[in-house]
């Protein structure tokens, strides 16, 4: 295959997003008719076809000489106004190809899993329509040849996230969480849009090509502004500290959604954007430090919160936030390929974890509280194995994939000289090992706390109902429905599920292992979670990924190990930290939990436990602000300012005229002599004017 052929082939890259888009359209209109399993297979099949095509694209790209491994195909001019011209174009370069492989590959597996998971859902077809639409949007996002097209995908994935989180629309918490997710993301989009405006202002174009060629020559302050604004978008999309509050709530969506969108792909779009817009970050310098520090702090804080969460998916959600922090650390210190590496690896093990959690939930009649589970590896052998592998991988146990990825990030931070970030990241590693250990041990090991025999109270209400009625109201609900929020005053705390003591639920029968369509993807992903490290081992010859990505980040400074010894020392330190984490988890939870007693970790942490459990009270603070002063101010604007002041001014003027009319009408007494007074008065005034004329 010659180079020209490869370019021609790459010009068909639009097929990759087109396939799932086609699926989305077909299923949106015909999903109901096509029916339960078939829609799922269509969606999965189309996405898998897209994966195949992505592989073809990958091959085509590899066929190009390294320095010209980028190909832009413009489908048509999207927006042409003034000096701005934006084509709907797709850029194929190593970065985007890696990403589409990830999206289509992991996506296909999760699609497959969802066929089993969503089985018997009344809106099965619609679910897959949204799922496919998400895949298409995500592919557009990463394949885009310009910021605006990326933004198209960016908003598209936000939309799909909204639709999927709120998929079970009759659940109030789900719909609220979906709104929260969308709105919080929009806050980030604020940054994205402003960044685009800045870019148009500075470069006159939104194309990545223009960025690459011109960013280096632009003013540093502008670059910093652009980079920070873009990072704001990333904070929103990737749930970094400040705008992270939507992600835990987004767990209200079906579990495959959490796996695909809120773990593997969409949330990593922020990392993608930082990599894609690296020229700005590089030009700025300061912005990179911000990114790294932000990432490190996020990694640490989210880890602390994950430590005490009782909900199986929320632990994973905070874990995701934390892991995303690592990715930004990597990007922030200039180790872009490490960031991408981490994204890939994280996708594998986090998807495994989520799907595993989904199987657990699915198999235990929607039980999500890890304190009510335990010993499940007996009942869910495959899932259990996969989950444990993923736990090991995420914790960074060598030689699983997670170890390499985490090591690459931390080492880069260290080599970049950012020791603060390194230290914070390292402590987060310990936390990761601890909370994942806690979760895995509580779910798959120890005593079986779900069993009716063990149940102390023997409550009859089903979990879903409990969730519906007594669950704390999420943030947005506080704003929209204060009266309802007051109904649950006792539990009207923010989104963080924390503090309710174990109250075992009743489960009829034993937990069920998932069907085959659910097990297979989990196992495949678990396999990747073991071996994905091979993609980019820290040995010069084995840095496949790094080498592949090299052309994209060519010219940027990359932190490199100063010596083999230092690298080794760092590795050892990391492994030690991981070991400590796992050891603590095992000491605490190895034997399961006594369901009549509170979670031991809260006791051990004391006040800190409450702080962590309430997610540093950040959600509470936001709720209080939005539900309190902001809501009051808005209400005042609406009820007082608009109605009384502005409308009041309008109606007041009208009223004044009417009052004047009534009063003037009263002068008309019907008495003819008074009318004559009017005439004389007029005469007096006219003569007065005459006097003024003559006298003046």
């Amino acid at each position: 295959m010659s180079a020209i052929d490869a370019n021609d082939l790459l010009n068909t890259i639009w097929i990759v997003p087109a396939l799932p888009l086609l699926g989305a359209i077909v299923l949106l209109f015909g999903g109901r008719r096509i029916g339960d399993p078939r829609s799922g297979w269509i969606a999965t099949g189309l996405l898998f076809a897209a994966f195949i095509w992505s592989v073809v694209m990958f091959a085509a790209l590899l066929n190009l000489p390294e320095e010209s491994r980028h190909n832009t195909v413009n489908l048509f001019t999207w927006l042409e106004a003034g000096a701005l011209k934006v084509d709907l174009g797709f850029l194929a370069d190593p970065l985007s190809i890696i990403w589409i492989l990830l999206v289509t590959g992991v996506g296909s597996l999760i699609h497959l899993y969802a066929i089993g998971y969503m089985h018997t859902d009344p809106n099965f077809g619609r679910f897959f329509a949204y799922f496919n639409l998400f895949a298409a949007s995500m592919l557009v996002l990463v394949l885009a040849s310009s910021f605006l097209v990326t933004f198209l995908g960016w908003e598209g994935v936000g939309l799909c996230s909204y639709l999927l989180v709120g998929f079970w629309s009759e659940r109030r918490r789900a719909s609220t969480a979906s709104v929260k997710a969308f709105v919080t993301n929009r806050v980030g989009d604020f940054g994205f849009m402003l960044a685009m405006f800045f870019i148009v202002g500075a470069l006159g174009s939104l194309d990545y090509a223009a960025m690459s060629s011109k960013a280096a020559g632009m003013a540093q302050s502008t670059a910093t502004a652009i980079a920070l604004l873009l990072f704001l978008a990333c904070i929103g999309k990737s749930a970094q500290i400040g705008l992270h509050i939507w992600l835990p709530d987004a767990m209200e969506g079906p579990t495959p959604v959490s796996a695909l969108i809120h773990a593997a792909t969409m949330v990593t779009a922020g990392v993608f954007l930082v990599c894609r817009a690296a020229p700005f970050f590089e030009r700025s310098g300061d912005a990179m430090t911000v990114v790294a520090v932000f990432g490190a702090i996020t990694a640490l804080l989210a880890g602390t919160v994950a430590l005490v969460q009782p909900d199986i998916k929320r632990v994973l959600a905070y874990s995701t936030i934390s892991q995303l922090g690592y990715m930004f650390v990597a990007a922030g210190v200039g180790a872009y390929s490490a960031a991408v590496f981490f994204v890939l690896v994280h996708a594998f093990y986090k998807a495994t974890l989520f799907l595993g959690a989904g199987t657990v939930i699915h198999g235990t009649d929607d039980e999500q509280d890890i304190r009510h589970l335990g010993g499940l590896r007996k009942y869910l052998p495959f899932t259990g194995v996969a989950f444990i592998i993923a736990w090991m991988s995420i914790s960074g146990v060598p030689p699983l994939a997670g170890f390499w990825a985490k090591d690459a990030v931390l080492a880069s931070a260290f080599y970049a000289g950012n020791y603060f970030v390194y230290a914070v990241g390292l402590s987060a590693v310990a936390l990761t090992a601890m909370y994942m250990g806690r979760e895995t041990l509580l779910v798959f090991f120890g005593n079986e706390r779900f069993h009716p025999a063990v149940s102390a109270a023997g409550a009859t209400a089903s979990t879903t109902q409990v969730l519906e009625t007594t669950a704390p109201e999420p943030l947005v609900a506080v704003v929209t429905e204060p009266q309802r929020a007051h109904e649950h005053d006792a539990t009207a705390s923010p989104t963080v599920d924390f503090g309710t003591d174990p109250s075992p639920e009743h489960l009829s029968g034993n937990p069920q292992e998932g069907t085959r369509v659910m097990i297979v993807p989990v196992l495949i992903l678990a396999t990747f979670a073991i071996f994905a490290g091979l993609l980019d081992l820290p040995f010069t010859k084995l840095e496949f990924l790094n080498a592949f990505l090299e052309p994209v980040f060519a010219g940027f400074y990359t932190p490199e190990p100063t010596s083999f010894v230092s690298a080794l020392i760092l590795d050892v330190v990391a492994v030690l930290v991981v070991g400590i984490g796992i050891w603590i988890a095992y000491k605490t939870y190895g034997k399961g939990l006594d369901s009549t007693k509170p979670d031991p970790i809260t006791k051990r942490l004391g006040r800190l436990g409450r702080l962590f459990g309430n997610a540093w009270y950040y959600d509470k603070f936001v709720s209080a602000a939005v539900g309190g002063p902001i809501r009051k101010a808005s209400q005042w604007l609406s009820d007082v300012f608009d109605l009384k002041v502005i409308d009041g001014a309008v109606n007041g003027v009208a009223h004044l005229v009417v009052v004047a009319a009534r009063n003037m009408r009263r002068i008309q007494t019907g008495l003819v002599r008074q009318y004559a007074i009017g005439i004389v008065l007029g005469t007096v005034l006219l003569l007065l004017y005459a006097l003024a004329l003559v006298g003046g």
Partner: protein
Amino acid sequence: MNLAAQTPSIDWLAIAPVIALVIAALVIILLRSIVRHARWVYGASIGIGFAGLVAAALFLTCQWSEVSDSGPFLTLDDMVAIDGFAVFIGVIVLIAASLALLLSSKYLARQGIESRPEYVALLLLSAAGMLVMSTANDLIVVFVALETLSIPLYVMAAYDRRRARSLEAGMKYFVLGAFASAIFLYGIALVYGGTGTTSLSGIADFLASVTLLSEGTLIAGIMLLLVGLGFKIAAVPFHMWTPDVYDGSPTPVTAFMASATKAVGFAALIRILFTGLDLYRDDWRPAIWALAVLTLVVGSVVAIAQTDMKRMLAYSSISHAGYVLIGVEAGTREGLQSALVYLLVYAFMTVGSFAIVAVIGRRDDKHLIEDYRGLGRDRPVLASLLALFLLAQAGIPPTGGFIAKLGIFAAAADAHSYSLLIIGVVASVVGAVFYLRVILVMFAGADEESDIPAADHSRVDGPTTAVLALCAAFTIWFGVLPTIVLEFATKAQLIF
């Protein structure tokens, strides 16, 4: 003794319209005194009345062609000025008189009013006085004409003698009218003292040739003249009779008063100010400005608080006077034209409105706006016509009212009277409030079952139908294709 030799030359064409009307009136009176109780006398008098009006109109046409061909002229020792302006006002007067006569023809019988033939005669005599007024080139003629047109109106206002309201209207109109006339007359006296003549052209010549060192007498006189004329055109603060008199008078009389009297009042005002006191333009313009502002504001605002249809229309007619005053204030040729056009369009709009009021009026002679509730449902055509006239009065395009107002505003802009322009446009919005309220009552109130008894919706008689058709046709026609009338007005210039 040699008197005959010095009688002034008489251009009979100049006074022929007046004579036609007077003769018609006299014939009616004669007929009435000869055949006292025959039923046909009233019918015949209406016929004679129309004959007189048509004859007058024909003479006016002749005058128009005369003026167009050989220019305007003065006659009867400069007492009578025949110019385009006079003819235009004459046309308005004749149109108003004809419409009022049409309206009255069945109304009088329906209301059981006596002495109907005399009514026709008085209408004609009043119209004759108006024609005199429109051509008057001497303050004395203005005064005499003013009385000639007013005295029949006083009587006609009180014509429904069995109703206290009608009598009260006549009484108030008369008492205040006499009072205002006395002031007006004092004004004439002072102007006479100031200039030595009462002839408008004489005054103009005098002022042009002499620079007055002491102009106090003259200016005081001018102001008093403004009082007298302000009363006739119902300018604030000389307007207070208007609502009461319009309310109490028989509705066709109100229509006639509102349309024709206002027109000739303005005719006299314009002629005095433009012809006689042209040099004092800068002095009288602020006075007119103040009158216009007061009239616009009071007329528009007080109308909002009215609950009676006729009173509401009375206040609206006051505000219309304000618009015409804007045109007068401009003091330009354009201002004059716009005032003329406005008066013409206003005549149709207001007569149309009162025609409907005359039909809808209840037996007890009140005209509450509430009585119109549901009219849109019961009498859609009538309600639509009233809506049309009201919208036209509000100046909403594409009715004639808009073009008329546009002309006024254009004149103000042309004369740089921006303050009046602004006040005028705002007043027109305030005015829209009360017109719309009536429309709202008629249409929006149609669905609700109201316990207010439906007004006495009598059948619309033929002549009234004709009036409504004419008024509506003109209102729309002028709104859409105003060229002909506007060109007519362009030619209707004052002699000086």
